[in-house]
């Protein structure tokens, strides 16, 4: 284990940290991403209103323009309010909370699934390997949004109507997670195949070292970099997928609006001129996806200088 930690320490000490300091774009991306994530995590403490508490809503506040006192109630809102008088700034904080929760959970699910599948494929070899990789190939050739939609459709058919609302977020996490396990599986399988054939691993197997030990002390440290890159880019994709599905009306339930739901809602008011209902959630989603993507791009280059 000491070998892996020192490797990590060295990696962090030299090239990665250096290229981070060198890239202003990356620093800005990190700040933007961190701000949105912190805002989402601490939403209940930061948000001026709780958009899910009907008692705090006042229909008189509906359609307030940003930074302009409402003509009926006189209240002023930073980013305005929507048709029901909900503060847009607060809904964005809570929306980002849901978007990020689904995103992180889906990536974690996909990552665990993918790493497990990759390890099993490499370790077992033979038909298990062929089968898993064949499934991965086929799935990779279909767009993930289609797979997520299909899983969603099946879940909708299987889950009783009265449970749909409570299960929706979990269905979403599974659907998005299932659509991006392949990348993880491939990377882990590749690395595990290389390690598996090394002599010390063969020797360790012969003297009866538990496979879990070999996996945790030798294989996983080796794939940490690529897995981190994939996880970062997957997070951006997962947030986008979640927003897309919610926008299409097959994602989170309307009682728990995510950024996608907010944008879908905002679109309805475009033609009547209430642009702020659309603009602010859209800008937040774009800033989040773009900054996480930039971080992923930077991470990939930093961990693999040859590709620059």
């Amino acid at each position, binding site marked *: 284990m000491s070998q892996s930690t020192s490797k990590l320490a060295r990696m962090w000490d030299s090239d990665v940290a250096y290229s981070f300091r060198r890239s202003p774009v990356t620093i800005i991306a990190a700040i933007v991403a961190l701000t949105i994530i912190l805002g989402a995590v601490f939403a209940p403490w930061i948000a001026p209103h709780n958009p899910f508490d009907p008692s705090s809503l006042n229909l008189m506040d509906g359609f307030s323009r940003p930074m302009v006192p409402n003509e009926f109630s006189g209240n002023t809102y930073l980013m305005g309010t929507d048709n029901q008088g909900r503060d847009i700034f607060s809904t964005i904080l809570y929306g980002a909370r849901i978007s990020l929760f689904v995103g992180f959970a889906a990536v974690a699910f996909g990552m665990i699934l993918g790493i497990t599948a990759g390890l099993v494929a490499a370790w077992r070899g033979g038909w298990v390997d062929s089968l898993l990789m064949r499934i991965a190939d086929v799935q990779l050739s279909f*767009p993930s949004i289609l797979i997520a939609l299909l899983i969603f459709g099946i879940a909708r058919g299987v889950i009783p109507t009265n449970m749909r609302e409570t299960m929706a977020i979990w269905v979403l996490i599974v659907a998005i997670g299932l659509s991006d396990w392949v990348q993880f599986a491939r990377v882990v399988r590749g690395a595990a195949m290389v390690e598996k054939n090394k002599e010390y691993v063969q020797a360790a197997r012969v003297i009866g070292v538990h496979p879990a030990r070999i996996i945790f002390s030798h294989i996983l440290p080796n794939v940490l970099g690529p897995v981190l890159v994939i996880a970062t880019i997957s997070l951006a994709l997962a947030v986008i997928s979640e927003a897309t599905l919610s926008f299409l009306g097959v994602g989170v339930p309307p009682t728990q609006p995510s950024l996608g739901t907010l944008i879908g809602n905002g679109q309805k008011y475009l033609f009547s001129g209430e642009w702020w209902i659309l603009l602010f959630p859209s800008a937040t*989603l774009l800033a989040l996806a773009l900054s996480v993507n930039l971080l992923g791009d930077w991470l990939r280059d930093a961990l693999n200088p040859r590709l620059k």
Partner: protein
Amino acid sequence: MLAYSLRRVLQSILVMLVVALISFALFRFVGDPVNSMVGQETSLADREALRRQLGLYDPFVVQFWNFITRAVQGDFGISYRLQEPVMKLILSRLPATLELALVSGTAAFILGVGFGVYTALNRRGLASNGIMTLSLIGVSLPTFLIGVLLIWVFAVELKWLPSFGRGDTVALTSWWTTGFLTPSGRASLVLPAVTLGLYQMTLIMRLVRAEMLEVLRTDYVKFARARGLSQRAIHFGHALKNTMVPVITVMGLQLGSIIAFSIITETVFQWPGIGSLFINSVKAVDVPVMAAYLMMIAAIFVIINLIVDILYYIVDPRLRLDGGGKH
């Protein structure tokens, strides 16, 4: 070659069978087909009769076989939601999707390859860096958001282009209607095509750029330079052709995903294609339409894959085992 083709065809059939199995399982086990077909007032006896008539008590293999034979003939049953034959629904909406995919796919291909080559050849230029930054935004912007923003700017603010629907269409055959022939049809196509094509374009561009940079580093390009060939001959004769070999594969797959991504675009623009049909079916758990859509998409993917293989074979002589041979 023959053995190779045969294996590819067999593989394709296998993939189709697996997808058919999923579709069938969907149809058979998600929800109850009988309860979905009949109204509340239908008696238990009638339901029982319908079950028998549909063959739901037959052995699984027999049911699957019947499903496949009907599917091959284009019979996917009746839509639960719209009470019309699924095939008729899909056919009537297919032209809208295909025209949209064709326009955006062609534009994405031409612009993507063009920008990709440009940014690879002028790696340090200001324009290249600008294009690359914009492309990252293009990749990060969700398709639906692109659509909504385009509607806002070009339909709501500028009022240049329509924001929904297909405009006026002209019927070419009994089921093929085209929007290409009317001014409103063409105008309606612009925003959805841009929305659908933008992501694909950035993807192709980034891929072409990466592959081209890779190819420009190869020995044969170095050797071509050492022979004093002109920049044009090296870049567009040698490098571009070699770049396109791996790019073709990915682009073939992208063509398939254009059709899948049209689900989102069609929803944003209320485009009357198969994508919006599918999403509405998912919401209503209209299983026959979902099953048919799945099989159709799979069929398109399989066909595209075969075409890509053939293209590959034409472009890359190493795959051809004609005459000569290795001595």
